[in-house]
């Protein structure tokens, strides 16, 4: 069966410059490269253009090409090496530690999305995995009834009703949208680890975390991305479509998660 990427989330890495610089670059270049709208006498083409919602396609394709080049030269070899050198068990534990470090952000986003059970899951995962799970290396919380879920600023903004906006392919960050990029910036601002501590050691640890996030995420989607590049006639358009569908699926999952906040051992409320 054809495998599509299991998770096509934004890798949680900072741009090589600050987020503000990235936003400025995008704004500047977006004024330069806009897609040409099809003529109004071709209603099918106009409908397709509107549905694709990618008015900055030329600019996005340039950034895609740049990203792809950087990926081929830097990130993919690192990910391949990581997968080759580091045993699967260690990689899995590393992923758990990194995920645990992102738990505070997930917790805040769950609260802001008005998902109380998810917020409870995030809080318990943070506490249990950090202590019993030895700084997050062992994911004990899932077995104890608090499963993992995805929560980030983009999903929160979607829950608040913000529309997606045109497709953006950001340098380094990859496929995104104004909503998701804003959410990502919000996540960095909300992350306590962004603000804690000063000095060289803290900075080094911070950059290590970002780098490890990038390599870890890239290693996890290694086969899937290779398959897309090999099988797609237009990898950019395929990635755009997959990103949007996956995002919508995440938002739908969050929206439909209305588990009761009454614990399982208590008498459950009767649904009317």
């Amino acid at each position, binding site marked *: 069966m*054809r495998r*599509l990427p*299991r998770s096509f989330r934004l890798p949680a890495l900072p741009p090589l410059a600050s987020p503000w610089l990235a936003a400025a670059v995008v704004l500047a270049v977006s004024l330069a490269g806009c897609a040409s709208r099809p003529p109004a006498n071709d209603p099918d083409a106009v409908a397709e253009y509107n549905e694709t919602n990618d008015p900055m396609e030329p600019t996005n394709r340039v950034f895609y090409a740049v990203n792809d080049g950087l990926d081929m030269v830097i990130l993919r070899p690192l990910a391949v090496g990581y997968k080759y050198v580091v045993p699967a068990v260690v990689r899995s534990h590393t992923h758990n530690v990194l995920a645990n470090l992102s738990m505070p952000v997930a917790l805040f986003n769950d609260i802001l999305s008005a998902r109380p059970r998810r917020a409870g899951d995030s809080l318990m995962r943070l506490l249990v995995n950090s202590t019993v799970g030895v700084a997050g290396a062992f994911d004990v919380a899932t077995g104890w009834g608090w499963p993992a879920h995805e929560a980030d600023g983009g999903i929160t903004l979607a829950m608040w009703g913000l529309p997606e906006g045109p497709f953006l392919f950001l340098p380094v960050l990859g496929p995104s949208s104004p909503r998701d990029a804003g959410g990502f910036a919000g996540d960095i601002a909300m992350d306590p680890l962004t603000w804690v501590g000063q000095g060289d050691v803290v900075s080094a640890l911070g950059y290590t975390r970002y780098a490890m996030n990038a390599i870890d995420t890239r290693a996890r989607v290694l086969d899937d991305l290779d398959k897309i590049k090999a099988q*797609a*006639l237009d990898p950019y*358009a*395929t990635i755009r*479509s997959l990103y949007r569908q*996956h995002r919508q699926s995440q938002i739908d999952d969050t929206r439909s998660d209305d588990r009761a906040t009454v614990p399982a051992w208590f008498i459950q409320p009767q649904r009317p």
Partner: protein
Amino acid sequence: MPTRRFILLSATAGLAVMGLPPSPARAQSPDQATAFIEQTVTALAGTVNGPGSVADKQKKLQVIIDRTVDVDGVARFCLGRFWRSALPAQQKEYLDLFHRVLMLNITGKVGEYQGVSFEIGKASARDGGILVDSTVNRPGTPPSKVDWLVGTETGAPRIIDVIAEGTSLRLTQRSDYAAYLARNNNSVQALIDALRQQASQQG
């Protein structure tokens, strides 16, 4: 008189039969769709996990896919609005190439799926068919969610879409082809040439 009564009765019976609504041959219940998917994944898993060389398994998988997936329907969907503007010869060639490329993509990495198992979940009605949930378990990777959309436009139940972790196969493929066509002057021939190149590269 008996003859007249007989004629009247049979005429009434005939009218009653004609007045009945047509039997819902096209409608399918979620249970039927679930049973169909269960059969399909059992056959798929059995082939992948069973004995034989990779080439044998690929041939068997192709037979199963031909039987259970509405490949032509998916192909027409993926071409979208350009199907009507294509010449009949182009349509035929496109269907043939789409079929070959799809088979190559699906059966290309048979070895990776050794030990695969499926768990079928619940079924729900969608516009276009019945969506059957399932979970795919592969040793060494976390379980992933795969949903199967079963339609009956061709009469028998057939798979018309596969949705892996929320992303639809045919929607993604349609976006890919639409973007390729937009960058090639909406020429279906260019798409056919590209597909032919893909089929020969991977075949």
